[in-house]
């Protein structure tokens, strides 16, 4: 009998040990500074009040996508455009910030179960996502570009030369929806210039780009991805190139869980207001120029 209880307690220690590793570290929350949302709000009993009381907002990020978000291996801190924007939002709310790193599928599916409060992760507010998530106004716009192998000479005019071609994209992302001509975002319309594409879905854009780098037409004729991802891949010395102008610009917003246990309306309004202010006072333009080589991606093209 004694032996079996020893096994059970050893098991409990292991499981608890892992559980203890769960939450991210963060500094303790202080009193809200004056002029911040938390100092002025009279919210109570909802998500905004909860965050102000805790003095901390938990934000999701995926640090595999520089320059939006990446992990600095030397300092152990996250850095990038999304990270700076999220930190500024937390500052103006008057709370500290802590990070969670859920996978993209879990994030876009909604039902976060209160594991984190907000996503500042370059997410496009598609109509489908709006069914489960609440979005702020866009904080920047990413150009989507067509990438081909360096050896390719046949793709000149994007409106005709890619019709029926094998094109690689990340699955279930906006680029795939663009090719399938069902990219629906309220308030935006898109010009679907590529017809009858043979769409190949990949787990991430990077895998698609690597397949393209194997050779012109080996597996893929082209890849559609964001300008920043394409440029990063080219800068790492891979034999691909960008052709033509961006095929579309996608708006990117901060997101909140519609089904969160607490009402998120006042928080969404507050952050939406903060994003508006950051557009107005030039903070976003400044951050965009800092991370995107002097380019201002914060105005709609």
């Amino acid at each position: 009998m004694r032996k079996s209880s020893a096994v059970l307690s050893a098991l409990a220690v292991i499981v608890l040990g892992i559980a203890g590793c769960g939450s991210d570290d963060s500094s303790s929350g202080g009193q809200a500074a004056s002029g911040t949302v938390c100092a002025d709000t009279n919210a109570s009993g909802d998500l905004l009040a909860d965050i102000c009381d805790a003095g901390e907002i938990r934000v999701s990020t995926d640090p595999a996508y520089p320059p939006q978000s990446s992990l600095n291996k030397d300092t152990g801190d996250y850095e990038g455009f999304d990270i700076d924007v999220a930190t500024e939002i937390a500052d103006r709310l008057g709370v500290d910030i802590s990070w969670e790193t859920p996978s993209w599928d879990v994030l876009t599916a909604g039902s976060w179960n209160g594991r984190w409060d907000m996503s500042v992760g370059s997410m496009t507010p598609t109509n489908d996502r709006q069914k489960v998530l609440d979005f702020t106004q866009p904080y920047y716009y990413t150009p989507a570009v067509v990438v081909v192998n360096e050896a390719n000479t046949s793709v000149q005019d994007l409106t005709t030369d890619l019709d029926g071609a094998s094109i690689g994209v990340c699955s279930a992302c906006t680029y795939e929806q663009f090719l399938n001509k069902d990219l629906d975002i309220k308030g935006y319309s898109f010009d679907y210039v590529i017809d009858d594409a043979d769409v190949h879905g990949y787990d991430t854009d990077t895998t698609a780009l690597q397949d393209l780098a194997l050779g012109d037409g080996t597996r893929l004729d082209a890849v559609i991805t964001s300008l920043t991802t394409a440029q990063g891949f080219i800068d790492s010395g891979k034999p691909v190139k960008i052709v033509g102008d961006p095929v579309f610009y996608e708006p990117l917003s901060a997101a909140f869980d519609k089904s969160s246990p607490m009402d998120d309306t006042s928080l969404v309004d507050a952050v939406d207001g903060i994003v508006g202010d950051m557009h107005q006072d030039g903070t976003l333009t400044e951050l965009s120029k800092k991370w995107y080589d002097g380019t201002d991606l914060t105005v709609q093209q």
Partner: protein
Amino acid sequence: MGDRLERLAVSSARIPFRLKVALVWVVIFAFLGFFFWVAKFDTDWMLDNFTFIAKGLQYTIYIALGGIAIAIVLALLGALARISSNPIAFGISGFYISFFRGTPLIVQMFLIYLALPQIGTNLHVQYPELFSRQFEDSLVLDPAVAGTLALGLNYGAYMTEIFRAGIQSVAAGQGEAADALGMTYRQKMRRVVLPQAFRVIIPPTGNEFIAMMKDTALVSFLGVSIQHAEVFRRAGLVGKADFKNLEALVLAAALYWGLTIIFTFFQRRLETRVSRGYVRTEPLRTAELPSEELSDLPPHGKGGGG
């Protein structure tokens, strides 16, 4: 052709077998090294990022150990239920094996990670007096915990069959003899049947553990926080960020392989230990032995006796 091979075998008979095997390995590794070189991997990047990825070993091992601990407990209970005549125990274990062997591990992980919190929330909303807020929060599991639980439940189902076979491999006479001595069910299992069953159970269990160590990679699909990420998640992270997926995956493969080699070594020692009662030793003539060596003789037939 066959004649030639036979002559080669005869003429090389003086070279020890182990040396020949070692030679085969050297040739295979030369090929591997050649492929590695031809693939033109960025070795500088691999060296730079080795420590970052290797730090995940700690959590890979935690998750695998937690998973195998849960699996062993479940497998033992499941196997005892599977051979019992109690219809409730038999029914539950039958369902458990069928469900957890019949659905993919990754689906079970997502069910535990995503569906449990939903159930907790809905129960709390519908029956607030029965299910408190704490109950609701307790079902929101950390990704690593959800993954460990899923691994334990899934592997426990497979190992239930291993344990059942092990217990049933013990000769029926052993249990009958225990009954005849007036032992209770618990005494019979603990003192007579299980010690003999473990000799059969240990090798396949070690095998399951080695398989589980690599299935810990699936936890990364739930999105473990970076500070506590295991090998595969760390490899994916730096690989994607620097566009060096292949290099990162090769590093991860090497780390998993190294882990497997280490645990295979321990598994072999454990197997030798549990089967020591069955090892045939040369019959020794007592007359030829010095007296002090005689007392060091291994006890014969320890595990085999009733």
